[in-house]
């Protein structure tokens, strides 16, 4: 080790770094982690080369959250006119109260419960005697107070253990009210290995209880749903602005600033555009099977990515009017983006970034760093699956483990009356022939350079080591990681909830991001780590005023 430490960091081989990350672990832990750290080959394999979506090692300080966080926090949290009632002790509901920075606009109807936090605040006696009575009463009280269209119930850890039947309670209350849709999510924190399980559970119930309830045809010509966009820091607002400008009608966003009716009508759209592949690909698949809506992967993070995604949507509809309009919008928006880049890239070019967030987000943000001519030297996901890393082609090769098997898969069949292929087989084939890709996601690995490190479920220990060894110019992760990285003198940008910033999506968002990254990597503060007398400890005999 002594010789290693003397090596200059830039000369470290990826394999050395990997070895260094594993050095401190007990042998069993090291063996497991070794499989989750991949030195990128930048090639598309059929068999997964990286292990992902496996249990977190007890005692290792993890970045991950839980199933409940994925279900209530991510998917249902940003829905504005649904009362999200958490059944459990108070904590779970408290921590998910407004902390994700999902922005919201109450809209003309003025219904917005996002600023509220609802809980059954289970007590000792509820744990001993069961909490169904209390849940029933709480639903009633919420109904009496607010008369919402819909109440969603979320189970936390103890609820599953004591066996409260939340689904029956929900069903009974729904029948009782008649004008309020009540349904429940069995998203206890211990199910699955990360937030990802919660996304899946949320998607199933959204599909079962919300999608397809309203057949009324909404006005608009090019109708899409935007899936996997949560309006963090106003991203959704910027994307909406662009859609409007292009003449694209977004029937429903899952689920940034979304409303009950949006979900209920979402099956009337003609295309599903999927942003966060990880959190929501299930809904896209189910909607395709049941209603015949094809889906494509899009990305509105990065100006080029935004343009590309708009073109993809326009290409799908294939009408000149839309294709032209999209080009016009891109032409209108890009000069401002290019001006910002021209000013900023000289200060960011060649700098390095690391990103460890979410299950698609690190990949999305790589595009923005590319635009800034910054190099992503290491990246990974907190709760990605193998297909998020290596592309959907590995799906058939992924072994389903016990933890994933606990999560319900719902059987979906074409809807007898409402299944309607949006494009004929011939049209689909023609599009595919032109290179149009449906249902496809290539994953992070093919986009990363050869020799970069792709690490699944990075933990605090490894994060610190990586930063020490490779000294990136910026590190991106979540709030828990923020200050330990910054203590090392490296700026840390939150990419789950964006610190105080945003939006970063779309054209205007890209400009915001460039400016912020410039501000972070070029901030003077990082040069203040050492006091002058620490930098230059020898005594000097001359005085300034001499």
């Amino acid at each position, binding site marked *: 080790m002594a010789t290693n430490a003397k090596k200059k960091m830039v000369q470290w081989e990826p394999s050395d770094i990997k070895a260094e990350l594993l050095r401190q672990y007990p042998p069993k832990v090291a063996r497991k982690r070794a499989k989750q750290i991949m030195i990128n080959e930048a090639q598309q394999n059929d068999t997964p080369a990286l292990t992902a979506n496996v249990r977190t090692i007890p005692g290792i300080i993890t970045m991950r959250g839980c199933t409940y966080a994925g279900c209530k926090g991510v998917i249902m949290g940003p829905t504005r006119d649904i009362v999200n009632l958490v059944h459990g002790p108070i*904590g779970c509901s408290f921590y998910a109260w407004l902390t994700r920075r999902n922005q919201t606009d109450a809209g003309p109807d003025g219904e917005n419960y996002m600023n509220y936090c609802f809980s059954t605040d289970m007590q000792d006696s509820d744990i001993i005697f069961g909490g169904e009575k209390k849940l029933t009463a709480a639903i009633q009280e919420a109904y009496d107070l607010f008369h919402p269209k819909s109440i969603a119930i979320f189970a936390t850890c103890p609820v599953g253990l004591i066996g409260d039947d939340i689904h029956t309670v929900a069903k009974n209350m729904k029948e009782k009210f008649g004008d309020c849709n009540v349904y429940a999510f069995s998203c206890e924190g211990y199910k699955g290995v990360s937030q990802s399980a919660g996304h899946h559970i949320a998607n199933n119930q959204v599909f079962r209880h919300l999608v397809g309830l309203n057949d009324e045809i909404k006005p608009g010509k090019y109708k899409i749903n935007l899936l996997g966009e949560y309006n963090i820091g106003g991203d959704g607002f910027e994307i909406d602005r662009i859609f409007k400008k292009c003449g694209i009608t977004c029937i429903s966003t899952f689920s940034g600033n979304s409303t009950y009716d949006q979900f209920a009508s979402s099956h009337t759209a003609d295309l599903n555009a999927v942003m966060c592949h990880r959190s929501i690909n299930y809904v896209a698949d189910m909607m395709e099977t049941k209603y015949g809506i094809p889906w494509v992967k899009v990305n509105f993070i990065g100006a080029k990515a935004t343009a590309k995604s708009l073109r993809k949507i326009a290409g799908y509809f294939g009408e000149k009017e839309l294709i032209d309009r999209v080009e016009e919008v891109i032409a209108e928006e890009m000069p401002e983006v290019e001006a910002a880049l021209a000013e900023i890239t000289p200060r960011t070019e060649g700098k390095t970034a690391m990103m460890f967030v979410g299950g698609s987000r690190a990949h999305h943000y790589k595009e923005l760093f590319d635009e800034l001519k910054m190099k992503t030297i290491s990246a990974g996901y907190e709760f990605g699956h193998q297909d998020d890393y290596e592309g959907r082609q590995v799906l058939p090769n992924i072994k389903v483990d016990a933890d994933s098997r606990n999560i319900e898969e719902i059987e979906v069949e074409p809807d007898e009356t409402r299944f309607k292929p949006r494009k004929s087989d011939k049209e689909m084939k023609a599009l595919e022939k032109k290179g149009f890709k449906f249902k496809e996601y290539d994953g992070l690995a093919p986009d990363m350079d050869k020799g970069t490190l792709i690490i699944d479920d990075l933990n605090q220990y490894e994060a610190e080591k990586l930063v020490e060894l490779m000294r990136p110019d910026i590190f991106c992760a979540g*709030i828990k990681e923020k200050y330990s990285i910054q203590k090392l003198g490296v700026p840390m940008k939150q990419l789950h909830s964006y610190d105080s910033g945003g939006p970063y999506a779309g054209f205007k968002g890209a400009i915001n991001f460039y400016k912020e990254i410039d501000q972070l990597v070029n901030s003077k503060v990082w040069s203040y780590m*050492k006091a002058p007398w620490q930098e230059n400890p020898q005594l000097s005999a001359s005085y300034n005023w001499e």
Partner: protein
Amino acid sequence: MLLRHTPTDITERKALTINPAKTCQPIGAMYAALGIHGCLPHSHGSQGCCAYHRSTLTRHYKEPIAAATSSFTEGASVFGGQANLLQAINNIFTVYNPEVIAVHTTCLSETIGDDLPQIKKKALAEGKIPKGKHVLSASTPSYVGSHVTGFSNMVKSMAMAAEPTGKKNGKVNIIPGWVEPADMEEIKRITKIIGVKTILFPDTSGVLNGPLSGEYKMFPEGGTTMAELKSTGDSIGTLALGEWCSADAARELDAKHKVPCSVLDMPFGLKATDRFIDALRTIGGVTIPEQILHERGQLVDMISDMHQYLYGKKVALVGDPDQLIAMTEFLVSMDMKPLHVVTGTPGKKFEKRIKELTKDMGCKVNVKAKGDMFLLHQWIKNEPVDLIIGNTYCKYIARDEDLPYVRWGFPILDRQGHQYFPTVGYKGGLRLLEKILGVLLDRKDRDDPESKFELVL
């Protein structure tokens, strides 16, 4: 309107909590544990709780909060979490090498009935706890009490680590309760000036208000050492600040090791600080130096100078019981009117204390333990106030009702300073007062008609 659906009509709710004024036990245990030197808190349950607790503490303190978790999945939830905890203890000592692991339960491990002391014994027997290292544990079910209870339980487990030698150490134990790192520092400053030797536990100063220097230390310099905790059994007495946060630990030392204790209010504001200083004087057998009197005089001076802006002002308060009791007394002592007082932490004693403190105010006071901020907002709608004091979540009420607002308590997610500037003691009183006056006078400057707008005030 951010809270547009909150009706003025107050209906009784038996089952539904809206906008809680408390959170769950483990986060308190985690914060307390960070006040032990070289300690890694460990959350025994599924990893989501730990992630939430770390995130909230991080947002409040703006500092790295390291804590490990047993990462339960379904298997552990059915078969018990012993294997996970044993593995975790081994991994933690190997990878992070802390002096102490402070384990607390979550509602999950509590519900399945994991027995921490027994698991700890097994870890010892299997050699998973290296020589000279420690594992503390506290049971912190989230369906009892609140985050304050969890804090208290972990502090009690610190008191349980006492190992008296039989030889008195001449020190006074001070249990400061859930206050900011800056407050703990201020308490140490005060006791130093007074000349009483103390063991302060927990002590998060130097842990959660650390410098930025290009180095990350998972275990910073600060914190009460295990040696000090062991020595608490040899102390001449204990001052427990706050019935809810600190009394259990003090009584434990009293009952087990005959270290006499007095339970005082947290030293926020003039009178509670007076009592604290006086108690130090008596127990330490010292005379109070001029400097302390000087600081006291400064606080009295500022109160008298600005009394006209404070007199009769109506206040709504939300927070934790020990802090609220002291704050209520402080406000009343300045002729202000705390009209609505809510804590989410249960306890009849709280309501009684607030009623006593406000009984001469000559108006009805709404007080509720185990209340929530929805109720507080409804009270405010029915009887408006001039000022609201509480944690960050108050900003929604403050904006909707257009109220001057002072951030104080836990959590404060959107401002800085609480970790650096104390609000305990006389100096802390000055700061509290400065903040209160600041918002009241800003409001006056903003709202007075031009003809009434004055330079000097």
